Every structure is written in structure tokens, then in C-alpha cells.
């Protein structure tokens, strides 16, 4: 089997993060300290080696970067200060760019101007569009649904959902092709995709692998990173469902009683989003954990957008509650100007894409392992019959 070598791969990967690939002398410390290493996936050193030798195709077909949760043990103990954890982070960004056929992901990760510029342009565009299409401004009382009729917003929502589905589906198809077709000699039986589907659901909802990262640590870092992340995900998951599918119910001028599920769910989601994004930003400012020592622009934009969306959401709610019509309407426009780039750009092309890439990678890993097991048992079965 021949490997096509790309001598510029190292330089390419370095555009995606701060790791020091070239200082690694392949001692294997990172792999041995990693709580996730298995015989089939002995990372991070194998990934670093692939970058060092320029094995681009092999790297594209790898699942390993998605199996890492960046606990930072490898970076902390690396005798060369090569920051293997950060290299794995760079590789996740790079893989996201490889899966994406539009080239936007690559542009966002490697150019600050592109990332910030496109966010600003889209935000402004949405704001102007919303202003242009908005209904009459009622100042006697707060009538958000007159200003921004919910059926129009809902249509925009569905268009957005279609847009997202298209790009996510095509990128996921490319990810699947890289990992499951190009990365394997034999195709796996289709039925495994169904039998292992449970893994996908389980890992999407629980992210339980991450708990392994916190185990075996002498010093616990306050509230577990896994729990913080899970809460944050439950928050935006809930919000996404309410806004995309139940907007009629969610965006209403009627003020329900405090114990109404609409308000309770909204409060819960907002609280965990504020806490999650706030602690992520705080951690990145303080750089006090391994996970937060290095911050790529994309690591800042994502929690900042989440925080901005949460805060403007709270403001809309309060202004409406206190009967301030004009303030409500304009905050709503600002809210949209943050929501749109967050969903349109971050989900398919940005950091938020790990929301589906990571569980899918674990799913593909489970399928591959199952296929390997079945192959092994198929081989031994006739032998024992002889």
C-alpha cells in the first residue's frame, strides 16, 4: 500500500491551532497517559506522526481526533512541550474543513477577516431584512407579533432548517465517505448501521465518554466539564426545538403565569446557556484549565454568540414583561442579528459542527469495531469446524 505524502501538511495543520508538531520526538508518552487510547485507536501520537510524515489521506480517514475530549493530560506531561492536546484540537478543526465541500469552514478557521466579516455581514443583513419586512410598530402596548409576525418568522425558520439540513447532510456524507469507504478495505454490512444506531443516540444525549476524562484525576476541577457541557447542550437543544418547531407557542405576546411550562423551559434553557457560555468565556480569559489554555478565534466566537443570544433573549423577555414596546422590538432585531450567524455559519461550518461530527464519529467507530469482530468470528468459525 502506498501513501501519498504531502510535505506541506504540517504547515497546513499549523494554521488551525497552536500545537508544536515538529518538536515531537515520538516517545509515546501522550498515548500512554491518554484515558481513551485503545489498540485500534492509539492516539494522539499516531495522529502527530501522520502530520509529521505528511500522510494527508490517512489523516482525512481518521476518527481519532473526534475521540479526544481534550482533558489535557498529554499536554501537561509531554516531555517536549509539543501540546498534543492542542494538536488534536487543530486536527478537529482541520477535519471539519476537510468534510466541508463549500470551503467556508476552511476560510473561517484560517482567516480572522473571513470569520468575523461573514458574521457581521450576515448579522447586519438579517437585521435590515427584519426591519424591512417588519409590521407596524405599536407603541401603546407590546405587540411583538404585530411587529414581527410569527408566521413569517416561522417560515424563515423552516427555510433555515432546510438550509442547515442540506449542508449538514452533504458534509456528513463526505465524512462518512472518508471514514467508512476510503478508510476501510471492505465495506461494512448495512445492517450494522441499524444495530449500532443506539450508540449514536446514547452518545449524542449523554456524552458519557467524556466522564472517562474526569476519572482518575487527582485534582478535580470544580464542577465537572462534562456536566457543564451537557447542561449547555440541553439548553440549546431545548431552545432549538422550541424556536424551530414550536415558535407559535414560544413567541407570543401573551404573558403566561410563572409556572407555565413555556416560561419554565425558557428559563431553564437560558440559565444553563448563560452558565455554560459564561464559564467557557471565563475559563478562556483565565486560561486556568488545560482545555482553555489555547484559544483559537473560533473558540471565542461560539460562546460569545451564545452569550449574546441569551442576554438579548433575556432582555426581550424583560422589556415585554415591563411593557416597553420600542425597546422590545429593537432588542428583537439585535437578537435575530446574533441568532442568524450562530445557526447559519457556526452549525454547518464552524465550531458548533462538532455537535454532530463527534457523536457520528463514535457511531462509526462502533460500527467499525462490530464489523471487525464479525470478520474475526467468521474467520475462526470454519477453522473450528474442521
Amino acid at each position, binding site marked *: 500500500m502506498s501513501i501519498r505524502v504531502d510535505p506541506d501538511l504540517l504547515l497546513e495543520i499549523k494554521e488551525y491551532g497552536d500545537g508544536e508538531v515538529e518538536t515531537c*520526538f*515520538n*516517545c*509515546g*508518552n*501522550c*498515548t*500512554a*497517559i*491518554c484515558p481513551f*487510547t*485503545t*489498540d485500534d485507536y*492509539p492516539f494522539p*501520537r*499516531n495522529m502527530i506522526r501522520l502530520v509529521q510524515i505528511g500522510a494527508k489521506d490517512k489523516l482525512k480517514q481518521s476518527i481519532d481526533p473526534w475521540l479526544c475530549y481534550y482533558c489535557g493530560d498529554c499536554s*501537561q*506531561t*509531554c*516531555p*517536549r*512541550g509539543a501540546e498534543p492536546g492542542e494538536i488534536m484540537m487543530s486536527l478537529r478543526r482541520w477535519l471539519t474543513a476537510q468534510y466541508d465541500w463549500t470551503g467556508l469552514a476552511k476560510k473561517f478557521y484560517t482567516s480572522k477577516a473571513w470569520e468575523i466579516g461573514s458574521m457581521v455581514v450576515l448579522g447586519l443583513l438579517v437585521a435590515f431584512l427584519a426591519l424591512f419586512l417588519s409590521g407596524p410598530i405599536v407603541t401603546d402596548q407590546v405587540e411583538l407579533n404585530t411587529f414581527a409576525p410569527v408566521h413569517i418568522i416561522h417560515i424563515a425558520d423552516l427555510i433555515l432548517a432546510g438550509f442547515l439540513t442540506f449542508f449538514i447532510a452533504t458534509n456528513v456524507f463526505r465524512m462518512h465517505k472518508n471514514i467508512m469507504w476510503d478508510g476501510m478495505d471492505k465495506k461494512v454490512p448495512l445492517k450494522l448501521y441499524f444495530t449500532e444506531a443506539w450508540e449514536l443516540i446514547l452518545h449524542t444525549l449523554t456524552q458519557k465518554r467524556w466522564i472517562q476524562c474526569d476519572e482518575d484525576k*487527582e485534582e478535580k476541577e470544580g464542577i465537572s466539564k462534562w456536566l457543564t457541557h451537557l447542561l449547555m447542550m440541553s439548553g440549546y437543544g431545548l431552545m432549538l426545538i422550541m424556536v424551530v418547531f414550536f415558535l407559535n407557542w414560544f413567541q407570543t405576546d401573551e404573558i403566561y403565569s410563572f409556572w407555565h411550562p413555556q416560561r419554565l423551559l425558557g428559563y431553564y434553557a437560558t440559565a444553563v446557556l448563560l452558565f455554560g457560555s459564561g464559564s467557557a468565556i471565563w475559563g478562556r480569559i483565565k486560561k486556568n484549565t488545560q482545555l482553555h489554555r489555547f484559544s483559537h478565534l473560533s473558540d471565542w466566537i461560539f460562546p460569545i454568540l451564545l452569550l449574546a443570544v441569551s442576554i438579548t433573549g433575556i432582555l426581550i423577555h424583560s422589556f415585554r414583561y415591563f411593557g416597553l414596546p420600542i425597546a422590545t422590538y429593537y432588542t428583537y432585531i439585535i437578537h435575530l442579528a446574533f441568532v442568524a450567524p450562530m445557526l447559519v455559519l457556526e452549525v454547518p461550518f464552524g465550531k458548533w459542527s462538532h455537535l454532530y461530527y463527534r457523536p457520528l464519529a463514535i457511531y462509526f467507530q462502533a460500527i467499525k469495531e462490530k464489523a471487525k469482530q464479525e470478520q474475526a468470528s467468521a474467520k475462526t468459525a470454519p477453522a473450528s469446524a474442521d
Partner: protein
Amino acid sequence: MATNKIKVDALVVGGGISGMQTALDLADQGYQVALVEKEASIGGKMIALSKVFPTLDCCSCITTPKMSAVAHQENITLLTYCEVDHIKQNGKGFIVGATNKPRYVDMDLCTGCRQCEYVCPVDLKNPFDNNLGAIRAIRVPFSTAVPQKVVLDIDNCILCGKCQTACAVDAIDFTQQPEEIMIETDSILLATGFEVTPKDAKKEYGNGKLLNVIDGLDMERLLAPTGPYGHVLRPSDGKEPDSIAYVQCAGSRDETLGVEYCSRVCCMYAIKQAMLLSGALPLADITIYYMDIRAFGKGYEQFYQNAKAMGIQFIKGKVAKIKEDENQNPVFRVEMVDEGGSVVEHTHDLAVLSVGMLPSFDPTPIFNVPNDTDGFIMTPDQNFSASLTMIPGIFAAGAATGPMDIVDSIMTAGSAASAASAYIKSQQNGKEESSSKIADLQKESQHA
């Protein structure tokens, strides 16, 4: 406090193999030399070792004659249990203040008969055996110590007076005070040696709390004929280990410890110990986990190949973590770098950390002799005059200048003695030193 004054041509600081060789090389040329050693006996680290690589000569057998030669060379004034306090420039020479620590024993009277040692009721951990064996509070530091005189550990003494009663020559004096010594000298030679990585340096290796994780110097004592047990036994339960494993680079080439350099001796001493262990415990499995084997000296590569041929197992991969199982066996977690990269957990009976070399003495508080970035004494002209420091008249030898083995230490000792000899001659004949790159460097640093 009484002050003694002596005047010499050269002062050698440190009585290990480098210092002894430097002092002998100068004294044999007729110079008056003072040798200052902080411990109660000269011999340094080398006298505690088992055998040397790659010849497997007995260390005591090579070091003891050197120690005696130093003691008997009439041009050498030997000052043991003595530490340098300050150095002052005195024209082109120096005035050095040193303190002779009280031994609580009259050096002139003591015959080294050890009667006091036999009656002393206080048993302490023996520092010469890396705390593996026991020793009395009043003792000859070790059997081949030079000078062969006792020293009293006053911090642990219970002042029972038994030694005083036992001493036939009435040499024990509990009232002894520190003595100051002024040494006027033309040149100073720093042979202050090294320390090893502390066992608790790396938390991944148990912070020094795992009983069956020892270091290379511990193993030297276990293997030495003069060692504490006469056998290789593991500390936790005194069992003979069946499986012994070495962790290479446990203190060198590791940014997390701030030591990025290679300590140069660990590969070879681990291989040497592995060979000696094959003799001491013929049935034991011996494994060396390494990142790279650096067998660079004359005969070293052959030595390594011999070790492989003897059945010592070499596994490429840095040991990432050592845990302990229920029997206090160390369990290694390591990536098999050469075998597909899978991660394994191997259990051994005894783990030996191949600890690295660290600078032991920082001269800067005493005198402005600059250190290099690695903490060892700076020798700016490494290629042509490796023993010259940044100060004219001050020279350095052995592991004080950087990690090195015994062979190289002796070589640099000779080089330092030769450079110092030329310097002393030029001072005494009133000639200027020849201009050279290094002299310019030294002048620049003095003006700075």
C-alpha cells in the same frame, strides 16, 4: 572563632573524582593545592557506585587509591567537612573564606578505631547507602572513608556520653566550634559535581511515594559489594525481585521538569546495572524502557549490544505513568512505539528510575561565576578550552560544567589542571596571559 590562614597556588572545591584528579594533577607538578570537601570524606558520588561502565571495573577499587593518593600527596592540604563561604578577588588571585564544620572529634587524636561507633546507641538511616541501610550517630562515614576519622551527627546525638567513655585517646569533644579558614590562592578550580533528579519530581511516577520505585543511585548501593544488604532486595517487603524494569529519561529530556538536556550517563548506567543484575539475580527478567539509547563513548555501543545479547529486554516507549497494584508492584503504562503503538500495562517487582543529573552548586551567591542556561557553570569555549569559566583564574571540571560520565570527568579534570597550571605560572612570572577569544569574552563580562 579561631581563624587559620593558608596560602596555596590552587584551591580545588569539591573532592569527588573530578576534584581529586584536578588536585593530584596540579600537586604532582609541584603546586601547593588546597582541596575543600563539604562531606566528612572525599570520594564524592563515585565511591558509592558499584562498577563503572563499560569496563565493569569495581568502583571502590579505582576510587580508593585515588583518595589515598590525595591524602598522602604532601602538596595537598585536605580540608574535609568544610564549606566555602565567600570568594574575594585579590589582585589577580583570590582570597577565599571557608568554614570547617565541627566534627566533635579531634582530628589529630582520632585513630579511626571505631570503638565509639560500636557503643553508640543511636541508629540512623545511612546517607551513604541512600538511606537504605543503617548507621550510628557517631561513625566513620563509610569503610573506605578518607580521612579515616569519625564524625558525630550532633542533630541526632542523644548526648549519652558512651562514645566519650569508649574512646581510648579522648578525642571526642562536644564543645567543638566551627573554624574559619582564610585561603589565599592564585587560582580556583570548581569541581562541585552534580545532584540527581529528586524522586518526588514527577507525580506520574508516584511523587516518590511508591516504595518499590527506586532510583539509579539506590540500585548502585544495592549492587555494590559494600551495599546495605549484600543482596538486591526490594524495599517494600525485602523480597528478591523477579522482574526489574528501568525507566529511562526519568528526569532528563523532559520539559515538564525544566530539564531539556540529555544527562548522558543514564543509558549507560542502566545498561551496566542491568548486566550486574543479570549476575546478581540470574533468573530475573530485566527490562529497559527507553526513548533512545545513547551509547556514544568508546566501547559503549558494544556494551549495549552485549546487554541485548545477554537477554536484557529493551522496549522503546516513554513510561507515562507508574501505579501500584495491591502487592505494591509497580505497574507501568507505556505505548509500545515499535510494536504498532498499542498501550500496555506491565507489572514488575521493582522499578528503577534512571534519574538525570542536575547542577548541585550555584557559585553566584559567593562569587560572580556565571551559570549557563541549564544551571551548570558556564564554560564559554566548550570546543577549545572546556575548563575555562567566564572569570580569569577560575576553572571548572567534571559534572559541575554539565552532565558527564567518569571518563569525561577525569579528562576535564586534567584539562582544568593544565589550564590552571599555565595561569598560575603566568601570574607568578608576572606575564600577561595570551590574548584569545576566551580572554576577550572574560574581559567583556568583567566590564559588564
